[in-house]
């Protein structure tokens, strides 16, 4: 164990990551005006943002790595997950009334997450199987198609839920219970999301390392043609990865709905953040995506805090992922863990 740790710390990539995290912590401390309560709140919210970014970026990265498709509709799945979870949870609003048959709000919340994941997965399957598959030999068309799909999502959501933003009203057991950290009150729900995100990082990592489908996905990222020549139906693997990627994004939207205002800009906001994450992590690298999510999430929230503390304008927070993306492309175009493509 000590050997692995020493080896890791000698690796220049991990040294760079530790420098970046150190710089972000110092920046967060300055942004919090050296108030420990405010600092812990920044870190906790940063980790929360990181996990949500990861949920969008994980699918984006796996899909890009395996299929060379930048799925612009990924943000749409995140947004759809948020709308579906909100609507299911609040039968008196929106378009869905099924939720009222479940009286307990906590149970209804779990069912709403499951509902969002299933719908996200099914729509992901349909997009890949019936629309993207005929375009495998035409990469530019795929890009246009996923962009078009993101617009269809947006307009579909406007048609069903209109453009009014929704704010979560119903407290589940997670939101009702709070705890105090250095004088600042937090909902347990946020900790629950962070833990859930970490569990998901580990589960996907185990799936990639320990299962046959994981080995096929990793091999497919390196050389999909050779995987075909081994007798494996790569297209079925593409469909599987695309479906899982979209379901995970919808899951992210569903779990984020209780503390994010559900609105039509949500998809693009997280899509841009996720693109910054996968470029910073290295295109197609799963470890890179997980680490970069944490870096971008923390930096994003620290900048938001900084802009409030020093009154420099709210726009800097949302700009942070894009600024980081520009910096990475200038200084290290292959990202943290990526290879030249």
């Amino acid at each position, binding site marked *: 164990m000590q050997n692995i740790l020493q080896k890791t710390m000698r690796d220049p990539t991990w040294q760079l990551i530790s420098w970046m995290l150190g710089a972000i912590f110092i920046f967060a401390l300055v942004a919090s005006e050296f108030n420990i309560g405010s600092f812990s709140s920044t870190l906790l919210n940063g980790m929360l943002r990181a996990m949500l970014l990861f949920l969008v970026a994980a699918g984006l990265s796996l899909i890009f790595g395996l299929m060379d498709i930048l799925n612009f509709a990924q943000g749409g799945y995140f947004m759809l997950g948020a709308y579906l979870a909100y609507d299911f949870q609040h039968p008196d609003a929106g378009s869905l009334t099924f939720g009222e048959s479940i009286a307990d709000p906590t149970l209804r919340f779990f069912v709403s997450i499951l509902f969002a994941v299933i719908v996200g997965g099914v729509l992901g399957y349909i997009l890949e199987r019936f629309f993207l598959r005929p375009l495998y030999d035409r990469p530019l068309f795929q890009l246009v198609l996923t962009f078009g799909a993101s617009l269809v999502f947006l307009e579909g959501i406007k048609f069903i839920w209109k453009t009014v933003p929704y704010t979560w009203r119903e407290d589940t057991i997670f939101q009702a219970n709070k705890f105090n950290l250095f004088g600042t009150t937090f909902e347990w729900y946020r900790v629950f999301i962070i833990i859930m995100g970490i569990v998901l990082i580990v589960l996907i990592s185990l799936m990639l390392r320990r299962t046959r489908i994981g*080995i096929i996905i990793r091999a497919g990222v390196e050389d999909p043609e050779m995987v*075909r020549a*081994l007798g494996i139906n790569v297209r079925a693997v593409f469909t599987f990865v695309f479906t899982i990627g979209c379901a995970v994004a919808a899951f992210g939207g569903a779990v984020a709905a209780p503390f994010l205002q559900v609105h039509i800009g949500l998809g693009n906001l997280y899509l841009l953040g996720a693109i910054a994450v996968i470029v910073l992590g290295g295109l197609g690298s799963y470890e890179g995506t997980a680490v970069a999510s944490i870096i971008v999430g923390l930096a994003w929230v620290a900048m938001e805090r900084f802009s409030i503390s020093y009154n420099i304008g709210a726009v800097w927070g949302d700009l942070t992922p894009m600024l980081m993306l520009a910096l990475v492309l200038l200084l290290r175009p292959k990202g943290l863990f990526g290879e030249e493509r």
Partner: protein
Amino acid sequence: MLIIWAAVGATLAVLITPTVYRNLNQKPLDGLIIGLIVGIIGSVPGLLVFWLLLPYRFRQSDRPPHPLDGFRWRGVAQMHSNNILEVRDIHTFIGQFHILEGVSLEVPRGSITVILGRNGAGKTTTLRSIIGLNNPRSGSIFYNGRNITHATAHEIAASGIGYVPEHRAIFKELTVRENLEIAARKRGDLERNQQFIFDLFPDLQRLIDLPGGNLSGGQQQMLAIARALVPDNDLLLIDEPSEGLAPVIIDQLMAAIKQLAKHKTVLLVEQNFRVASRLADRYVIIDDGHSVMSGDMADLIKNPDVIKRYLGVA
């Protein structure tokens, strides 16, 4: 089947949705979901009828299943009974470039056949056409009597053809064990054949947990061949196995290929004539996209003019 299923489901959904939409206090999403559920349930009778009437031949079990069942094949070829593979006048394009302009060859069962030719003659494209990575536009390829000309690469490979490409194409991020595991087509393939593989390439057993990218060129070549031996392939297509390797390693590889040819048929692409002449029983010469000569290797060795003309070897 999927199209019929979807059509029936979608039609019912479309028919029912407006009614539900009106009845449910103008909640369009509720209406859509109920419509879809009813549509899916409604499509079950259609599915049953389809299953019972149409695909009768798929459920016949009076003969053992063949790996090529379900292929878009055009009937059984009139092949020479001793040939495992026959390629007949194939024309293959890469993009707009006409690479193969009429290649024909035969591979007798249990033989080592080598494809010879100068750089850019079309040797690698011939192997890629056979394995389905560049399907020919015309001509035909028969494997074990079945036409596999337009089958996909994974279908062809799964029918029993192993492919060892030029430059090895091992998965560098995967360990040696994972590189072997991924090639297994059914449970137990690796366990059944690993002793044969490790007898042939003892180094691989020692390096089993190393990433493929950490192996030397020769070890990577051994891994690439070993990978093709994991499933029970009958035919191995090996592209330039000696390329970029030291003479000692080439000798080891040649011995291994000779050994494995006792159990498998091998179709080899090799530019090193010294290696090819010592390994192969038969040869095919490809020149500028055409197959120009074929026959027994022993006859070719006696014909230095042909060797010089087509291979540039004195």
